[in-house]
């Protein structure tokens, strides 16, 4: 890779991370303003993981995500307007207003869905990989989940299964150290996700998940191994969730100074500092960040003006046989 190629990758990572951050900051503001009903789980501080991983995926690769999935969707290429309208419950949302933040999906870009159940996306990704292979596709599946998911059965089942059938799956554990409101270390025995993964026959590597370039490089290696027929791999990315579990959690349970210390290592500022040190113009980086903010604010304004779903839509897309209308 030439220096120019490398700079282009870093700029792509920076742009994706700025868009994820801007989307979630805009969504938080909209939630506070009462425009977004229901729970909202943001991933502010974790943007380097989806940005770095998805830069290595093809459009026909599939991903599954979790309840904190805006970044995964955006990094995979999901349409912003459809996402924002989904958060606001509008007719033009990707899910026609039936899913909301926790169930964002955009099948047109291979984003097979966020998930309201921890570890829920793991078996789905494993099966997607098995189905793709059956269809003769060379695409792979990638599955994002948190450190909390490794204590659920589907994690153990899914990794064993993927290794057994040598399926093209990249498992990505975003380890932000907290499972909802509980420190992961207080509920997780043993040496952690890498050891569990390797015990199940899935080679795993750890990476500083707040270093976008490192995530990109590690994911690139693992994806190449998977595409080469090596079977599944796991990427363990350590990161930090700068805000609470949901938009209404002030995270008062954090240790004093913990969040301030983490802010020093947050991924967007880090990549920005690196780019500046490598000679990138500050004005260019500012322009990218400002454009992301403008894009998301425009999406929010457009979503606010967009129509609500017709109540008749509530009856649609349940099932073909035995669909009900009216009182039943």
């Amino acid at each position: 890779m030439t220096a120019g190629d490398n700079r282009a990758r870093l700029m792509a990572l920076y742009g994706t991370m700025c868009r994820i951050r801007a989307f979630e900051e805009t969504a938080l503001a909209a939630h506070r303003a009462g425009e977004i009903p229901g729970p909202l789980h943001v991933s502010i501080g974790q943007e380097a993981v989806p940005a770095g991983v998805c830069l290595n995926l093809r459009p026909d690769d599939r991903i599954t995500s979790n309840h904190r999935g805006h970044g995964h969707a955006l990094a995979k290429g999901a349409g912003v307007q459809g996402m924002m309208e989904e958060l606001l419950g509008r007719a033009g949302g990707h899910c026609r207003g039936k899913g909301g933040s926790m169930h964002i999906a955009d099948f047109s870009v291979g984003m097979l869905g966020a998930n309201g159940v921890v570890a829920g996306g793991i078996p789905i990704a494993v099966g997607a990989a098995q189905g793709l292979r059956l269809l003769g596709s060379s695409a792979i599946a990638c599955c994002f989940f948190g450190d909390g998911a490794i204590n659920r059965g589907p994690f153990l089942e899914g990794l064993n299964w993927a290794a057994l059938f040598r399926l093209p799956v990249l498992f990505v554990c975003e380890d932000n150290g907290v499972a909802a409101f509980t420190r992961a270390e207080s509920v997780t025995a043993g040496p952690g996700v890498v050891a569990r993964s390797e015990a199940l026959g899935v080679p795993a590597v750890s990476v500083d998940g707040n270093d976008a370039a490192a995530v990109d490089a590690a994911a690139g290696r693992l994806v190449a191994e998977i595409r080469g027929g090596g079977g599944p791999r796991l990427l363990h990315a350590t990161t930090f969730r700068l805000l609470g579990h949901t938009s209404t959690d002030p995270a008062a349970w954090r240790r004093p100074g913990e969040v301030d210390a983490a802010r020093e290592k947050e991924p967007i500022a880090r990549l920005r500092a690196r780019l500046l040190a490598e000679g990138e113009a500050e004005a260019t980086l500012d322009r990218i960040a400002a454009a992301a903010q403008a894009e998301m604010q425009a999406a929010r304004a457009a979503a606010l003006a967009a129509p609500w779903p017709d109540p008749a839509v509530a009856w649609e897309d349940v099932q073909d046989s035995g669909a009900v209308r009216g009182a039943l």
Partner: protein
Amino acid sequence: MAEVTLVEAARLAVLQEMRRDKRVWVLGEDVARGGLFGQYRGFLEEFGDQRVVSTPISESTIMGAGLGAALVGTRPIIEMRIFDFVMCAMDELVNQIAKIRYMFGGQARPAVVVRMPHGIWRNSAAQHSQTLESWFTHIPGVVVAVPSTPADTAGLLVSAIRSDDPVLFFDPKNLFPMKGEVPVEIAPLPFGRARLAREGRDLTIVTWSAITPAVEEAAATLAGRGISAQVLDLRTLWPWDEDAVCRSVARTSRLLVVHEAVTTGGFGAEVVARVTERLGPGALRGVARLGQPRVPVPFAPPLEDALKPDAAKVVAAAEALLRG
């Protein structure tokens, strides 16, 4: 036409559909060796190990991987071995498969068939004999199929495999040896149409799945005693043939629902409620339900027999209904 067992009818239906559509495949424990009941016998040799996948005993992932594979365009048959094990895969079934089309605004079609051989399996006790089909009728998004004959099993399986809806297919495992005629070319049998198992005018007996032969035997006994029972086998519980049941009850004015499941909260309650709502309570001279008492299925033969509905109990319930 050929006379085959119910389990062979099911095998022939899946065989036909796997030959017809390369996207159809089967996953589950022991399916490559033919399945627990021989319902996939010979499949590995014909279709290979990419389409006949023996899996670990990992019910969550059997169910969830089936879903994931459906989302990329294949049409999996998810074999649960026996029904009771689906309890280990309820998140994947109820939270994921049943919801995904709706929750994602129609982007997904989870075209899976979940096969769950259910019901009392002689002397297999409480964790291998359950009949909980009514739970699943409560879940929007799924079709619930409960056949009782070889021909219906075959026809409904063909429909289930071709359906874009997730279909929960309750194989009546105690009836697997039962013989019946099945056509060489198996046509899809539409969901939601009851089978008229016997014509009658004095009362309507609604039933489904493994208890159906006992009900038909009871109806023959009743006929010998001058009681003419119309027997309807619902074949699917969602959608279910309300029209056929209401037409029959409007004529007989007496309704007995018989199922192997526990009576309390069983689908019989739904049948009685809907018929009453549609016809009005004045149209009914008597209603009754017959199922298991609200007790787990016991092991020892005399205990199992004491609780299980059978032809004699159906006859007694029908006679009581006519006296009432």
